[in-house]
């Protein structure tokens, strides 16, 4: 099976979007999880709801909402326009779509791990002079490692499969913003493209397998150390 150049580009683009989206989402997701796990403030439930919204809504709808926000008439879009930043119809839009849609998964995983941390450890750290930020970095971060790993591999996999929101805000431009799922969809919807669609599916599976293996190896390694 020979892939067309645009297919190769789609594979590379998807990998890039997945990696960048994960890198962008990780710190944000960690912060959000920390707020939800340890924070005590009003409006926490509201914040939680907000983080979960992209999960509840069909990605296509998320895409429309993002388009409203980031488009030239949107609040954020106009701001970005002033700064000369173009988002719509660029691969950055695909990253944003992935980040927004996968965010709830990431936050959930990390938060779950954080909630499992023995409070005595946090207390010990505090009594040893570690301030909140210090504790986050030296106790909470390493002890929620499993959750971060699980969450980010989940997130990466989700971003490899992200379709609905991406096609709306990034468009489906072969060689430019066409990610793997868009290419797969294109092929799958014409009877003659079934073979290529399946081959691209396999690539997508292989990619997430690689991330999964990496995740397991890191966990195993850390356990053994």
């Amino acid at each position, binding site marked *: 099976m020979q892939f067309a150049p645009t297919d190769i580009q789609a594979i590379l683009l998807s990998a890039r979007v997945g990696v960048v989206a994960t890198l962008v989402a990780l710190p944000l997701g960690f912060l959000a999880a920390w707020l939800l796990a340890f924070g005590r403030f009003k409006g926490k439930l509201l914040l939680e709801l907000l983080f979960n919204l992209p999960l509840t809504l069909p990605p296509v709808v998320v895409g*429309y909402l993002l388009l409203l926000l980031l*488009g030239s008439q949107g609040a954020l879009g106009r701001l970005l326009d002033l700064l000369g930043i173009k988002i*719509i*119809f660029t691969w950055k839009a695909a990253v944003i779509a992935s980040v927004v849609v996968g965010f709830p998964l990431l936050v959930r995983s990390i938060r779950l791990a954080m909630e499992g941390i023995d409070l005595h450890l946090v207390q010990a750290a505090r009594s040893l002079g570690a301030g909140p930020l210090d504790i986050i970095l030296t106790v909470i971060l390493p002890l929620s490692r499993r959750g971060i790993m699980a969450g980010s591999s989940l997130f990466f996999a989700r971003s490899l499969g992200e379709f609905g929101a991406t*096609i709306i805000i990034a*468009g*489906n*431009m072969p060689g430019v913003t066409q990610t793997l799922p868009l290419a797969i969809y294109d092929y799958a919807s*014409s*009877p003659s493209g079934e073979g290529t669609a399946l081959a691209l599916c396999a690539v997508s599976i292989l990619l997430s397998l690689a991330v999964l293996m990496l995740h397991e190896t890191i966990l195993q390694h850390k356990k053994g150390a």
Partner: protein
Amino acid sequence: SLSVAASLRESVTELSDLFQKRTPGVSFKKNFGASGALAKQIESGAPVDLFFAANNEWVEYLIKKKLADEKSAGLFAYNQLVVAGKPGLKIASMQDLVKLNRIAIGSPKSVPAGEYAMAAFKKSGIDKQVEKKLVLAKDVRECLLYADRGEVDAAFVYKTDALLLSKHAKILYVVPENLHDRVTYPMVLTVAGSKKPEAAAFIKFLASAEAKAVLTKHGFEVR
């Protein structure tokens, strides 16, 4: 760049490739999707010059919003609504559809082909009888998929799409054009596109015999 309704994907790709070969230095970026999504993208400031839609509704929407150049609006191609289904079935008239169990049409709210199909049902007076049998697909390609896999007895699709069918399904019946508005594919230049000479040149190229031959090859009608 071009925003192209999904059902025009193959033909517009071939046409633009041809044009690029003819006119060195010109290159197109193409964006494929549902007409509605494409229109919304343009509304949100997507850098699009030329919009090929699958129905008039979204072109008018853009024109009303002063996002498209009304003067440039034109019809690009025509198509025919057909019923595709299991090779054994015999459909001679719309009335024959009542006997079937499942019929796939595009969702009339969002898919033009579905809208045409609904109009045809109404005109033939069988809309009430078939209402419960309808499976609303999100696009024509999905209708085609159902027909191809034998999940439905019949599907309302365009002739151009039906030509792609494998042996599991074939065209059973061509819906008479008097039962619905003619299937047209309009195109329009956006405000940004109307300032670009290449875009105008491409529109001119589309009217050429060479371009029409390509469209005909893909099953479109050009009159």
